[in-house]
């Protein structure tokens, strides 16, 4: 079992919160966006009591930071842009997976159409890498700055991420004679107040007619080839570090103590490499 945590820390210094989160949830791989702390400072915080984590820097990408309880050798970058890093994750003793971490432009900077186009390009990148590596054991995680129901996330040429595991398990779907592989998007199951935890990962009460208030901008998408290693119970939106709440007393993300985004935590039961 490998435990991963993604958090857009909101351009705030958060070494203590990260250290608490990593300890409380026994995180193996920490994935961060909008980091202002020096990696060395975060490493010191993560290794406060026990030296467990290594820093796995990108080569061209300097905006997404990865810390893991194994050497950076086992999280080598394969392809990057300034908003994407794809790693070949093969910690000793376990099967290899592809871990793609993304931080898309915000809705302040990009239109919905531009975000959709970027999803198409990301989907192309991932399909190409999967062809090169010869497998589709891929997890895509990050701050998409899009909701699970938006065109770029749902459409076949985009992420093709669906809410139903059974649909995803079909593997692919053909549209206009082109075959597109599915992702399973389990974040749908955490949307709204019918499940434990917050109703989304990002709260935005804007003074306009159409407002969702809660958004699920931070998502993890799982390829069908990894679905038997992933259980819905092993996914959560985190609202507490173990030492302090990440929410205000009205129950929304508290940027003063945490970030305007909440972390997401998920586990994969990776099989032992033979």
């Amino acid at each position, binding site marked *: 079992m490998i435990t991963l945590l993604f958090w857009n820390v909101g351009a705030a210094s958060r070494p203590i919160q990260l250290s608490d989160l990593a300890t409380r949830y026994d995180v193996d791989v920490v994935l961060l966006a909008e980091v202002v702390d020096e990696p060395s400072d975060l490493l010191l915080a993560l290794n406060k009591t026990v030296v467990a984590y290594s820093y796995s820097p990108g*080569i*061209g*990408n300097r905006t997404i930071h990865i810390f893991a309880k194994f050497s950076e050798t086992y999280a080598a970058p394969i*392809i990057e842009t300034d908003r994407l890093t794809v790693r070949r994750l093969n910690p000793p003793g376990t099967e290899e997976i592809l871990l793609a971490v993304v931080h898309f432009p915000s809705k302040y900077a*990009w239109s919905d159409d531009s975000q959709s186009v970027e999803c198409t390009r990301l989907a192309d990148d991932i*399909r190409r890498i999967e062809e*090169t590596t010869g497998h589709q054991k891929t997890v895509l995680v990050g701050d998409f700055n899009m909701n699970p129901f938006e065109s770029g996330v749902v459409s076949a040429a985009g992420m093709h991420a669906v809410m139903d595991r059974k649909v995803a398990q079909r593997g692919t779907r053909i549209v206009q004679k082109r075959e597109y592989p599915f992702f399973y998007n389990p974040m749908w199951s955490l949307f709204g107040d019918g499940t434990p935890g917050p109703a989304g990962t990002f709260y935005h009460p804007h003074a306009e007619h159409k407002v969702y208030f809660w958004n699920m901008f931070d998502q993890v998408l799982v390829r069908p080839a990894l679905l038997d290693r992933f259980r819905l119970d092993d996914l959560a939106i985190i609202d507490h570090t173990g030492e302090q709440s990440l929410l205000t007393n009205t129950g929304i993300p508290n940027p003063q103590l945490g970030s305007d985004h909440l972390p997401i935590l998920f586990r994969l039961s990776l099989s032992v490499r033979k």
Partner: protein
Amino acid sequence: MTDLWPTDLGTVTTKSPVTILKEQASLLGAKTKNIVKAKVQKTPSYIVPAMPFNYEFMLHAPALDNYSYRLFVVAYDVDLYPVRFWVNDAIAEEMGIKRGDDLFATGEEQLIEILARILGSQKTRQVIQAILSQSTDLVEIDGVSSA
């Protein structure tokens, strides 16, 4: 039957944007002892349907498990110009392009000018130097000189 086609159809007088990109890409390997190469490849999907020719300019490191970094993307239609560029945030900032603004080259001269600014940017240098540094480490570990 009378041949109505012009006789000089086989004569190409202008370089296509992708040819210019490929020419520049071909020069990088020699400058880095082939540790970092540049590749121009067609993108699998259209970015803008009205601009069906889509190419991405990648930095490529064969010694780093074929690591790739996408520097920028271009698109254009059968008229060749204008060429639309999508550059990454860091390069856009260096070039003084505001978020949401489009970057177009309206002709060959402007294409070359934009290309020069992208290839000469700090971000491009930083990525190339990072690849060189990592690749050199690997080569040293393997006991083979990269020089």
